[in-house]
C-alpha cells in the first residue's frame, strides 16, 4: 500500500465548496431555466439569454485554468453543476457540458499555452461556445472510420468534408475538428482548432429530433478550410487518443445529464404521488407506483456515486475509462427508465404534455446514444473486466 493511500477515508458527502457550487447551479436552474424549458423545447429555440447568464455566473469557465481566467475546476465539479442544470433543462445542459467537458477541458489538457491564450478569454466570457466535431455520417460509434480530410499545405492544413450531429454547431465560435492526416485507421487522425469565422466553414442541415430540441444539432461543413498549422492540437496523428480521452470526460458530462433527468423524473413522480392523499392525509397512491419510485430512488443514489467516483479519478489524473463508461452505462439507462416511469405513473397528463415528464422522456433518449452508445460503454467495461 502506498503512502498516499493511507490518507483515504470513505466519504460520500460533497465538500462545502462543491455544495456551494451545487446551490448556485440549482438556483440558476430553477430561476432561469425551469420556467422556460418547456417553451424552448416546443419552439426548438436555443436559450441564448440563459447561456449568457450562465457565462456571467461562471458556469462556462468552470474547467478553464485559473491562469486563463477560469475557475480551474475539474470533472467532479462539472458533474455536480451539470446535474442541477439538467434537472431543469437538458438542452441547456448538453450545451454547457460540451463547452466545458469536451472543449475547454480538452484544450486545457492538450492545447499549447498560445492556443489557450488565444481562445480561453472568449470561451470564458461566453463570447465563444465550443463545439466538438468528431462524428460523421459513416462514423458514429465507429469513430475511427472518419473520412474528413486534413491535407498539409505548407504551414497550413486544408480541411474538407462534412461533420454530422454537432451539438451547438450553429452557435459555436470555435470547433475542435478531428480529421484524417493519413490513412492509418487510428493513428491517421489529428485534431484542429477551427474558428467559425474561417473561410469555408458552413452550417448544413439542422436535425429535427425527438428531444433536446433547444440544443441545435447541425451538420458542420468544411469546404477547403485553410487552418494554420499552429491550430493543430498536439502532434499529428494524436487526434484519436485525444478524442478518446476527451470522451471519458464527455461521458461524465452525459452521466451528470442523465442523473439530472432521472432526478427530475423522480421529483415529478414524488410530487404526483404526494398529491394522492385521502381526506385524512393518508397516501392512497398505489404500491406499484411507490415501489417503482423506491427502486428508482435507490438506483439514483447509487448511480450518482458511480459517477462521482469516476469524476474523482479523472480529477486525480488516474485511469478512469472503465469507471466513466460504467457511469454513463448505468445513469443513461436509469434516466430513460425513470422518465418512462414518470410518464406511466402520471398518466394522461404526462402524455398530453401537461407535465414536464414527457419532455424528460424525450430528452433522456439521447443519453444512451451520444458520446458513445450504450453498447460501446459495455464494450469498454467488458474489456476492462476481462483484462483484470
Amino acid at each position, binding site marked *: 500500500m502506498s503512502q498516499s493511500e493511507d490518507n483515504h477515508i470513505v466519504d460520500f458527502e460533497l465538500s462545502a465548496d462543491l455544495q456551494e457550487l451545487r446551490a448556485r447551479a440549482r438556483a440558476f436552474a430553477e430561476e432561469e431555466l425551469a420556467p422556460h424549458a418547456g417553451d424552448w423545447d*416546443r419552439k426548438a429555440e436555443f436559450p441564448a439569454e440563459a447561456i449568457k447568464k450562465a457565462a456571467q455566473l461562471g458556469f462556462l469557465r468552470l474547467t478553464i485554468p485559473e491562469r486563463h481566467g477560469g475557475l480551474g475546476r475539474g470533472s467532479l465539479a462539472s458533474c455536480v453543476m451539470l446535474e442541477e442544470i439538467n434537472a431543469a433543462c437538458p438542452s441547456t445542459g448538453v450545451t454547457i457540458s460540451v463547452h466545458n467537458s469536451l472543449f475547454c477541458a480538452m484544450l486545457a489538457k492538450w492545447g499549447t499555452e498560445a492556443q489557450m491564450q488565444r481562445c480561453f478569454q472568449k470561451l470564458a466570457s461566453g463570447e465563444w461556445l465550443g463545439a466538438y466535431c468528431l*462524428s460523421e455520417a*459513416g462514423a*458514429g*460509434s*465507429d469513430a475511427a*472510420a472518419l473520412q474528413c480530410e486534413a491535407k498539409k499545405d505548407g504551414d497550413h492544413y486544408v480541411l474538407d468534408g462534412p461533420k*454530422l*450531429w454537432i451539438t451547438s454547431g450553429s452557435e459555436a465560435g470555435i470547433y475542435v475538428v478531428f480529421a484524417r492526416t493519413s490513412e492509418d485507421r487510428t493513428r491517421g487522425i489529428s485534431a484542429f482548432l477551427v474558428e467559425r469565422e474561417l473561410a469555408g466553414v458552413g452550417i448544413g442541415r439542422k*436535425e*429535427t*429530433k*425527438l*428531444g433536446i430540441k433547444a440544443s441545435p444539432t447541425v451538420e458542420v461543413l468544411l469546404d477547403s478550410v485553410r487552418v494554420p498549422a499552429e491550430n493543430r492540437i498536439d502532434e499529428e496523428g494524436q487526434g484519436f487518443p485525444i478524442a478518446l480521452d476527451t470522451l471519458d470526460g464527455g461521458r461524465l458530462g452525459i452521466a451528470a445529464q442523465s442523473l439530472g433527468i432521472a432526478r427530475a423524473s423522480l421529483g415529478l413522480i414524488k410530487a404526483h404521488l404526494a398529491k394522492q392523499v385521502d381526506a385524512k392525509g393518508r397516501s392512497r397512491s*398505489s404500491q*406499484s*407506483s411507490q415501489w417503482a419510485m423506491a427502486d428508482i430512488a435507490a438506483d439514483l443514489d447509487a448511480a450518482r456515486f458511480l459517477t462521482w467516483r469516476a469524476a474523482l479519478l479523472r480529477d486525480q489524473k488516474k485511469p478512469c475509462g472503465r469507471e466513466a463508461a460504467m457511469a454513463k452505462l448505468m445513469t443513461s439507462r436509469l434516466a*430513460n427508465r425513470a422518465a*418512462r416511469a414518470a*410518464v*406511466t*405513473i*402520471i*398518466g*394522461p*397528463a*404526462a*402524455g*398530453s*404534455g*401537461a407535465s414536464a415528464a*414527457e419532455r424528460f*422522456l*424525450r430528452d433522456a*433518449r*439521447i443519453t*444512451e*446514444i*451520444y458520446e458513445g*452508445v*450504450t*453498447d460501446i460503454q*459495455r464494450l469498454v467495461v467488458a474489456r476492462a473486466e476481462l483484462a483484470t
Partner: protein
Amino acid sequence: MSLEHNFSLSEEQDMIRDTLRKFVADVAQPAALAADEERAFVGENLSGLAELGLLGLPVSEESGGLGLGMLSFSIALEEIAKACASTAVLMLTQAGLCARALEGIESASELLGEIIAGEKIAGFVGPESGIIAAESGDELSLSGMVELCIAGEKADLLILMAKSPEGENLLLRLDAGQFSASPRHSLGFRAAGPAAISFAENIPGAAILVRGEAADRAIEVAHLAGQIGGAAIALGTAQSCIELSMSYAKERMAFGKPLARQQAVSHKLVEIYRSRDAARHQTYHAARLADAGQDCKAEAMMARLAAQEAAVLAGDEGIQIHGGFGFTTEYHVERHYRDAKTLEVLHQGPDRMRDCLGSEIGTLS
C-alpha cells in the same frame, strides 16, 4: 419461417388487409412524417377510411356496419398503425369506441350513421376519466376534466361515459358548445387532434343517451374494443420498428461489417421480434374470443399490456439500433416510440389494468 395457424386469416380478412395496404402506401404513409411534425390533423385519412367503408368495420350489419368483428378490426388497425398510429387511433376512436358504444341505441342511430360515414368526428371519454354527472331538474352538471382526448381538437361531439353521484353509469352525447377543447402539445398521436376537454355549465338533460344496464353494456363493449384495438395499434408500431430496424441494421456498416452481424444488435432484433410475436398471439386470441361472444376481459387486458410493452420496447431498441439517426424524426422510429408510450397512458393505465387483471384471475376473490 411460417406465420400460419394462430395467425392465419380468412379470405375476407386478407382482402381487408390488401385494401388497407394500398390505402396506407398511397395515402397514410406519405403524409405521416409531416403530419406528426406539424401536428396537423389527419382528417383526410379519416375520410378516406370512411369512403372505403372501414369506419363501420366492427359495427354490426344491423347498425349499418360491415359486421366483420374484432379480429378484422385488429388487422386493419395494425396495418394502419405501421404507417401512422395517429390515423389508427382515430379509426379506433370512431369505429371502435364511439360507434360500438352507440350500437343498438335507438336515439343514436342517426349519429352512428354519420360517424361511420365520416360526416361527424366524435371524441370519446371513457370511464377512467372519472367524470361525474349530477342531474338537477332538466340540466346536467359535469365535474372533472379530460387530460388527453383523441380527436378532441376537431370533434363535432363527444361520446362520454360518466357516473351519476349515486354511481349509476350514464352514456352522454355532448354537442358543440357543451364542451371546449384545448389542443395539447402531446407526446404522441400528434396528428390525431389530441386535446384537453372541459365542460360547459348547464348541459341539457337530454344529453343522456342511455343509463343503467344499457350504459353498462355500452361501456363494456367500448372498453373491450379499446383494449383489443389498442393492442392492435401497438402491434403495428412494433412491427414497423422491427422492419425499419432490420433493414437499417443490414445496410449500416460499422467496424467493417453490417450492424446486424453484431451479435448485440442481432439479439436486440430477436428480442423485439419475440415480444411482438407473443403479443400478437395474445391479441388475436382475445379478438377471436370476442368475435365468438365469449368472455375475454382478462385476455383483452393481457393483450393490450403485452402489445404496448412490446411496442415501447421495439421503439426504444429501434432508436438504439439506429443510433444518432434514430433520434431524428426522419427515420420514423422515434415517432413510433412516442406513439407507443402515449398508448400506455390512453384509456386505462397499466397499473389499473393490473388491478383489474388481479380480479379476473382471482387473486382478489
